[in-house]
């Protein structure tokens, strides 16, 4: 066995991969061989570290030096300075702010407040090596269940832990397993919902890419608990790296007898097959997902009957989200009390959030339930860039709502978010600042929903479209008195009468922005103004005649020749030709052009 004195961990998540991390790895291998260090230094491709804003990330152990924004051309320097001579390459070390030069991962603010449970192994192990997963207690939970617990005991452990579905529904996982376990003995199924369709969400992707075995182990544990010997992993096809890692993981697990027949010497068999999605957000809804696996058109059907009674192929089925599964092995190993000791009274454990939008530290964070929004955004997320003012945070993607500054101290958990008009959702958290127009945000999410609606039931198929038409009129300056009332009437009824969760939650972004930012809607409709200065149709670029020196630069750069005037005299913008691109304002050295 090679004895390595140093491990170089390179992030191989999708984000860093698209920033050339495979080339970084290649370069490391080349340079290490050149320096004769290939037997001492091990290069490891891991899953997502979470601090995506700083990627590609390279962490060198044992020092734990956290190099960020690494390029393949930086590699020779890291090898020759750090690995050969022991001198850290400080220009590449992650800097949280101007002063601090962080040298190791534990000291970074971004990680200090996190509690990584679902993400425990992400960024630590090589996801394509099953031995590394095993080294960190992998598959021990499965072994325990099969050799020491009866199925009902496993269900009881999950019930006691208080784990709730992490896909957005928040349904108590133990209870779901109980319902299915109670069904008579016949063919049953375990399905892992890895369709992750919310725009901006990539929690599940990182788990699948960085810790694939945790999901497999959990599915096997679930199968044992409810009496199923077959599992399906439904992954969206837009995640090719995740699919590849899962395929490798399944093969490796079979090799070692951790999937297949007679696991751990018991009579329990379990197999997992992968099924790919085909570009439909609605197939993340459990009934549509089932239809998709069955080869039918991805449309949900009414419940009852629920999947626990009649699911995939008409058989009792449990469907759980990737993140829900990722928690299972540790709950078994550490006991339900350990999990229940974290979080709030009704929302136990931690939650992974994907931070996006106007926030400094974009990336993946895992925090105990009950952490306040303020802590997430400012302490962990590093606050709003360019010193802008926080306006709202959107949770739950196209099904969720906006949380304004007045609720920044809300302790995040399932029920507290629903109480203020939003929802936990799968964990996407988009931060918005003063430059975001809340009406346009609602329009953006509704646009998504209209595109993704399956079209089966009339309120969602037609109603969301009509709501979108109203919003599009509003942001283009053609809003009318009565539009808000129309929106509310439609929203309430679409919410109340749609067939599935997509339709039932589609009006949420509109309802919550109306609740907290009604004044913005009214400004758009009555005053034909966008207070955030975002909606192009409601903006005018104007030249301040007092400030304009008549240099003519703006006229030269205007793509539509909308600006005219005589040199040394104030110029003027022809509003009918102006396309509001803003180039003139950016080029004016005299600050004579303003946006109103």
């Amino acid at each position, binding site marked *: 066995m090679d004895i390595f004195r140093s491990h170089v961990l390179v992030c191989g998540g999708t984000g860093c991969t698209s920033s050339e991390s495979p080339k970084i790895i290649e370069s490391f291998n080349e340079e290490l061989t050149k320096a004769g260090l290939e037997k001492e230094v091990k290069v490891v491709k891991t899953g997502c570290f979470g601090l995506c804003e700083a990627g590609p990330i390279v962490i060198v152990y044992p020092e734990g030096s956290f190099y960020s924004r690494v390029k393949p051309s930086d590699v020779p320097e890291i090898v020759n300075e750090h690995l050969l001579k022991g001198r850290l390459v400080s220009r590449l070390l992650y800097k949280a702010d101007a002063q601090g030069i962080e040298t190791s991962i534990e000291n970074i603010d971004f990680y200090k407040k996190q509690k990584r449970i679902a993400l425990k192994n992400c960024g630590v192990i090589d996801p394509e090596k099953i031995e590394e997963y095993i080294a*960190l207690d992998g598959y021990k939970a499965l072994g325990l269940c099969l050799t020491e617990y009866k199925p009902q005991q496993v269900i009881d452990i999950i019930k006691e832990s208080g784990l709730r579905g992490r896909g957005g529904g928040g349904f108590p996982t133990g209870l779901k397993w109980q319902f299915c376990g109670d069904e008579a003995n016949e063919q049953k199924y375990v399905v892992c919902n890895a369709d992750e369709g919310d725009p901006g969400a990539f929690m599940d992707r990182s788990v699948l890419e960085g810790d694939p075995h945790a999901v497999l182990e959990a599915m096997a544990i679930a199968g044992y608990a409810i009496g199923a010997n077959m599992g399906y992993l439904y992954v969206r096809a837009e995640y090719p790296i995740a699919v590849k890692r899962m395929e490798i993981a399944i093969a490796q697990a079979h090799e070692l007898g951790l999937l297949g027949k007679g696991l751990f010497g018991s009579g329990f068999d379990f197999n997992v097959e992968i099924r790919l999605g085909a570009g439909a957000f609605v197939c993340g809804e459990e009934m549509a997902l089932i239809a998709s696996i069955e080869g039918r058109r991805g449309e949900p059907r009414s419940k009852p009957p629920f999947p626990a009674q009649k699911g995939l192929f008409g058989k009792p089925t449990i469907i759980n989200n990737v993140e829900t599964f990722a928690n299972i092995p540790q709950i078994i190993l550490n006991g339900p009390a350990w999990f229940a000791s974290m979080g709030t009274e009704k929302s136990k454990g931690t939650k992974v959030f994907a931070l996006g939008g106007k926030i400094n530290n974009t990336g993946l964070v895992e925090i105990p339930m009950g952490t306040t929004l303020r802590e997430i955004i400012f302490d962990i997320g590093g606050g709003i860039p360019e010193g802008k003012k926080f306006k709202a945070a959107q949770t739950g993607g196209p099904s969720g709502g906006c949380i304004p500054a007045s609720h920044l101290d809300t302790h995040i958990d399932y029920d507290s978010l629903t109480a203020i008009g939003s929802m936990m959702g799968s964990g996407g958290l988009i931060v918005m600042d003063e430059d975001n127009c809340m009406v346009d945000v609602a329009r953006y999410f509704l646009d998504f929903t209209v595109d993704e609606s399956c079209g089966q039931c009339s309120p969602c198929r037609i109603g969301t479209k009509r709501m979108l038409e109203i919003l599009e009129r509003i942001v283009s300056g053609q809003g009318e008195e009565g539009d808000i009332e129309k929106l509310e009437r439609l929203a309430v009824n679409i919410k109340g009468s749609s067939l599935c969760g997509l339709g039932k939650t589609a009006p949420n972004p509109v309802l919550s922005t109306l609740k907290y930012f009604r004044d913005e809607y009214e400004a758009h409709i009555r005053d034909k103004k966008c207070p955030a200065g975002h909606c192009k149709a409601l903006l005018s670029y104007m030249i301040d005649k007092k400030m304009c020196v008549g240099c003519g630069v703006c006229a030269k750069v205007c793509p539509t020749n909308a600006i005219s005037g005589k040199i040394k005299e104030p110029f003027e913008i022809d509003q009918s030709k102006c396309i509001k691109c803003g180039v003139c304002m950016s080029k004016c050295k005299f600050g004579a052009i303003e946006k109103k």
Partner: protein
Amino acid sequence: MKSLKELEEIRNKALCQIDLRKKGEGIRIVVGMATCGIAAGARPVLSALVEEVSRRKLSNVTVSQTGCIGACRLEPIVEVYSPSSEKVTYVKVSPQMAGRIVAEHIVNGNPVTEFTIGYHEQQQQGR
């Protein structure tokens, strides 16, 4: 996989591969690997330490390198940081001395006094 015991075996074998990545509360052995150190022969010392730690399957012990520690005439220098006691600096370390350091200090908790910088200075003054 036929039993938890079989799993445990794989785990133990793989553990040392991973161990390095946990910044734990264990013992850190740091070898000065600046130009002076390398010139004085610090590489073989590093290798010897790594091999010895591995051979003994010591967990929570990391061996890493650092830049110039400062006392260049005393290279190769090895510093040992333990959570429970004060830092110990060994000077003019040779690969053979590495073995005793690991055995007596790291494993048994008794620093090898005659290799330390304090002892060395005393010897020098005593002359």
